[in-house]
């Protein structure tokens, strides 16, 4: 305790120099905290867009479905999985997939028909809220569809228009029906944008004569990790394949990891830049006091004691500076969390990254673990930065030190 106080007083001997260095360290800390917050937010937003919207944290399919998307490869016992999910408090949405053609006037395009249960979708996923024009599907079947933005554009279709769907039904016949477009989605991701036609599962069954086949169950975990969801539902899965979003969208997963890694690289670089200042200041501080150290050594202080004292001084500097920096960083982080940085002026189009939409309003996410890690690393950096000056002084010869000019 006493050594800390002495360290503090020594630092105060040259307030300006200490102040400037403390400011630099504080700024480094704040920058690290806020950079991690923003990048954490960007990652979170990307992953959410990739999962919360539609894909979910985990999906169940029949083996081989993902490779060929055949209408015949349905889940064997979807009801069991759905019941298990409900019992565990995991949101589940069953979906059916089929392929066909939609046309409006002379324009036509290939479409991926997705039969959904609107209530389940609304409960567990965000897509129903991402309607650009019109509304999402009603809970009761009404011969209506909600389509992707780019699909609407290429068909020149508006809300209220009719679409003709021509499909190859499961029983081999040609399905041919008229649907009414009740909603057009916002830009949410490549695949949905350019090919999705969402319809009530009852409408889907009729169109495709699909006999109640369900091809996919998308699951949203709230408290569990994706791996945890897989583990919890494995007993009820039977032959079905449970995969997490990382396996379903490996490029998104890689991008997530890449951002994480690059944040750490930047934080390390910033810590280094801040530490140079600490080393510089401690060198100057010890240089000024060479005579004093000489006297102290002559009086019997061991090199270890001097090493400890000088390092402690650097640590005290780091301690107070990171305290200040953390306050500033958290304040910035709070702002980033509430308001965020609005970059929509910079971007004209919407940008998708690995198929996932990039939100131009960057919202930060402050994780306590990140903040604590930054503080701890900054402390360690300050201690390490003070070691070189401390060692230099600890090895002084008392006599030459005392007569130093």
């Amino acid at each position, binding site marked *: 305790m006493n050594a800390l106080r002495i360290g503090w007083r020594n630092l105060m001997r040259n307030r300006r120099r200490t102040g400037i260095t403390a400011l630099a360290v504080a700024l480094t800390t704040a920058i690290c905290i806020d950079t991690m917050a923003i990048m954490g937010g960007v990652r979170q937003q990307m992953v959410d867009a990739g999962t919360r919207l539609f894909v979910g944290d985990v999906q169940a399919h029949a083996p081989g479905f993902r490779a060929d998307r055949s209408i015949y490869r349905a889940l064997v016992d979807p009801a069991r999985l759905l019941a298990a999910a409900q019992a565990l408090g995991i949101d589940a949405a069953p979906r059916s997939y089929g392929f066909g053609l939609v046309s409006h006037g002379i324009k036509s395009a290939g479409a991926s028909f997705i039969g959904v249960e609107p209530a389940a979708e609304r409960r567990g996923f965000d897509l129903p809220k991402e309607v650009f024009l019109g509304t999402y599907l009603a809970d009761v079947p009404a011969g209506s569809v909600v389509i992707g933005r780019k699909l609407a554009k290429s068909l020149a279709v508006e809300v209220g228009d009719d679409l003709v769907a021509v499909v190859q039904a499961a029983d081999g016949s040609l399905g041919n029906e008229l649907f009414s477009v009740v909603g057009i989605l916002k830009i949410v991701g490549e695949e949905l944008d350019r090919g999705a036609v969402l319809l009530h599962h009852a409408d889907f069954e009729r169109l495709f004569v699909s006999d109640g086949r369900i091809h996919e169950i998308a699951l949203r975990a709230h408290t569990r990790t994706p791996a945890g969801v897989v583990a919890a539902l494995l007993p009820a899965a039977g032959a079905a394949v449970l995969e997490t979003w990382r396996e379903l969208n490996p490029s998104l997963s*890689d991008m997530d990891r890449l951002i994480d890694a690059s944040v750490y690289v930047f934080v390390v670089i910033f810590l280094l830049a801040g530490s140079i200042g600490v080393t510089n200041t401690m060198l100057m501080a010890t240089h000024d006091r060479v005579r004093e150290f000489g006297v102290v050594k002559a009086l019997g202080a061991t090199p270890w004691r001097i090493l400890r004292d000088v390092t402690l001084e650097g640590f005290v500097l780091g301690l107070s500076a990171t305290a200040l920096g953390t306050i500033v960083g958290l304040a910035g982080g709070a702002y980033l969390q509430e308001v965020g940085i609005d970059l929509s002026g910079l971007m004209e189009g919407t940008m998708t990254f*690995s198929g996932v939409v990039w939100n131009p309003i960057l919202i930060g996410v402050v994780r306590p673990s990140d903040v604590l890690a930054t503080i701890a690393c900054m402390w360690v950096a300050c201690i390490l930065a003070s070691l070189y000056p401390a060692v230099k002084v600890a090895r002084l010869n008392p006599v030459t030190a005392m007569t130093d000019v």
Partner: protein
Amino acid sequence: MLLVKIAWRSIWRSKRRTFITVSALSFALSLVVFFIAFAEGVYAGMINEAVRMQAGHVTIEHRDYHDAPATDLTVADAPALRIKLAALDGVASTKLLVLGQGVAKSGNGAEGVAIMGVEPSVEAKASPLENKITRGSYLDEGDTRVVVIGQTLAERLKLDLGKKLVLSTNNTKGELVEELVRVKGIFATGVVEIDGYVVQTPLGFAQELFQLGPHEVTRIGLVLADADREEEILRAARRIIAAPAVARPWEEVLPDLAAYVRFDGGSNYIIQGLLIFLSLFTIFNTILMSVLERSREFAMMLALGTDSLRIRAQVVLESAMIGVLGCGIGLLVGGIVALALQIHGFDLKSIYPEGIAVSGVSVGTRVYGQVTVKLLATLGGLVFAATLVTSLIAVRHISRIEPAAVLR
């Protein structure tokens, strides 16, 4: 000059301090140079891939196509126009494209696809797709009723070389047409949006499919030798073409890519700026301390009749020398590493095996840095200027030295 001599000797008086300041500067600057060169290289690579695979740096298309793409919106008299455009200075190659939406059907299912009618000989030279053929071969002149498809599409429809598939689409007359084609080659770009969606076929066949005349195309793409001349060539192109055709820069045709480059570039510059800013603290501290420590010396010089301006000039000159040393070393180290990156490139596969896609454009797995003299000069100049400004702030202290108080 006495001032220069005094300044130079002064900075070497305390070697350790000078060493630290120079180190801080060069460390920061070399990092900045490296990261910016790396980023610029990645962007340039992405843009290069995208424009060569799609419709060039400058695209000629029907003015309404941008807002509502449709197969009947074409550029007329394309071959003749193309010859005139190819003659423009700075145009490396031109490509003709016919684009439309359709469905690809096989015995195992159907998928929505983008049908791209291309000139095989031009694409083979210009487009990166040709290099990404993993099985079979690319299209040749004279081919008809063949396609090259992506690996993902092949898997989904269970197609292999030589197998047949049906392309079905609406032609310009509004009729539903279906054609049987054979798979000649399978490519893999690593980007699902391309590998599962793009089908390339010879231009003539595409024109027949969509019922377009032999002189009609959807887009004429101009690939430039020097991407910086885009503005100039855009203007030149506009003088040649006539309504309803318009010339658009790639930033309009691929707005997502443009947005990404702007966004990522912007955030990169902010981070680099912060890094330099942090380093300036150390430099400021050092300069200020060296001024304060020399108060007696400066007081003595003032007493001898030296102008305080001269003393301030000395300190600023000292900072300038440290700036030159630090920036010089920083540029050298950063420049060498960036140059190595430019020559050897860096394989992204080691950290990102799936390949990165931005709005359907593949980044390409090998990235090269891009370091130019202009970049080095700009960065070095900025950092040097920042160092000088920092020293100017620090020397404000000198005018406050009262020799009498110091000498007391």
